[in-house]
């Protein structure tokens, strides 16, 4: 999809939502202008991070429940931006993937700027059974490959989900790790390995 049609799609979606706006909008507008005043750049966390992008704006204005038709169209738009590896190989090194999954470093004002950053995976998901300190914001991924099957199609889904979680659930709580340039192609492949490789402890 080209840029112009993306923007017009977004504009149409926003217009639909404006029509549905209610009294909360006043407080939201006040909150927004207040926050724009109240945040300052520190380290790599620049003040402009307080501005919402188009997708965030839609999720913010709908309580993370956009009308299904809009959600599906915008999810497709997000999916269209997923860059799959040119070599077509998606299954990376699960051992490296485990390390990436462990690390929560990156993007805060106390983190060193630049890459690589961690995947933050265990913060929210159960993954390999050896790690008992895992979060529950997201679903358990234990035995992911074993349950779903290590097929080319499933590998592509996992890669795309990590690259841009909003491709499948527009207002998902999960960050868009590839879309924002946080995780590299190799890192995402290694995470696919962690979840899908039959040799990974996730699938033992």
């Amino acid at each position: 999809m080209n840029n112009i049609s993306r923007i017009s799609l977004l504009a149409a979606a926003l217009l639909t939502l404006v029509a549905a706006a209610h009294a909360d909008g006043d407080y939201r507008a006040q909150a927004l202008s207040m926050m724009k005043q109240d945040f300052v750049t520190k380290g790599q966390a620049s003040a402009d991070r307080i501005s919402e992008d188009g997708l965030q704006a839609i999720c913010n204005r709908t309580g993370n429940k956009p009308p299904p038709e809009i959600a599906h169209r915008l999810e497709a738009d997000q999916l269209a931006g997923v860059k799959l590896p040119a070599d077509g190989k998606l299954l990376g090194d699960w051992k490296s993937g485990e390390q990436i999954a462990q690390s929560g470093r990156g993007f805060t004002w106390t983190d060193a700027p630049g890459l690589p950053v961690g995947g933050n995976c265990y913060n929210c998901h159960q993954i390999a059974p050896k790690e008992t300190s895992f979060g529950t914001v997201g679903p358990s991924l234990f035995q992911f490959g074993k349950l779903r099957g290590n097929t080319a199609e499933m590998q592509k889904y996992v890669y795309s989900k990590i690259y841009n979680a909003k491709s499948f659930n527009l207002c998902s709580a999960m960050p868009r790790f590839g879309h924002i340039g946080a995780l590299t192609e190799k890192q995402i492949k290694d995470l696919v390995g962690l979840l899908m490789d039959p040799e990974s402890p996730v699938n033992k």
Partner: protein
Amino acid sequence: MKYRIAMAAILALTMQAASAQDKPAAAVPAGQKDATTLEFEKFRTQMEQEGNPAELFELQGEEFWKAKRGPKNVALTASCDLGLGVGVVKGAYVQMPRYFADAGKVMDAERRIVWCMVEKQGYKFDDLARRPFAGDNYTPEQTSLVTYVAAQSANMKFAVPLKDPHVREVYEIGKEVVAYRAGPYDFSCNTCHGADGKRIRMQNLPNLGTPQGALSAVLGWPGYRMTGSVMLTHQWRMSDCFRQQRFPQPKYASDTITALLTYMTANANGHMYKGLGIKR
């Protein structure tokens, strides 16, 4: 290792302050995080019984509150109204944030104390805001003051005056701040704190929209944090949440922080404030 050092540091402090008789619970082997949590809970209970190091800061804060200080050489106890009358500290903490007509703003306890230091004692806001939170061997005076004021509300019920339309408006704005997603990771406060029963790693995440969740988020502040041996306020906690949210830094004593504290504290209205906390 850090945990052991912090425990040793606190033990030393406590021996001075309250001549502790019993040793703290032995350090647990690395990797057993559930066990560590249990040990910490036990240790915290013991510290609360024998003397929370936070009380040292409370004493310091009381001195600051009562002494004539600042360029104008004025005592806060003779000039600062925390909402219940000039100099009244008992019960003031659990009834803030509230609206202060003299400032034309809703303010939380720390912001109000800073306002008094500036307006009544003549301190410069920029000086107070330069290093507003405790760090290595440093505790801002306003932190000790907040600690003193908060301690005088121990075992009293939260009663943020939500019937005041000024406060209600800020509460509603705070509710929007909590839901606002932005930044590189698309996080809002609610991404982690908007549902029951969630965890980051082993850390339980209170649901700020519920009375019980809000209560567990406001209890224990201000608190003495063993990691780093520092006395920290609820303002600090809000700032560090935004750091982890990958947001830019909120300005010290800003409207946004007051709005958040108004939302959270008012959601805990009617529940008991237990006093100064001990944090890991």
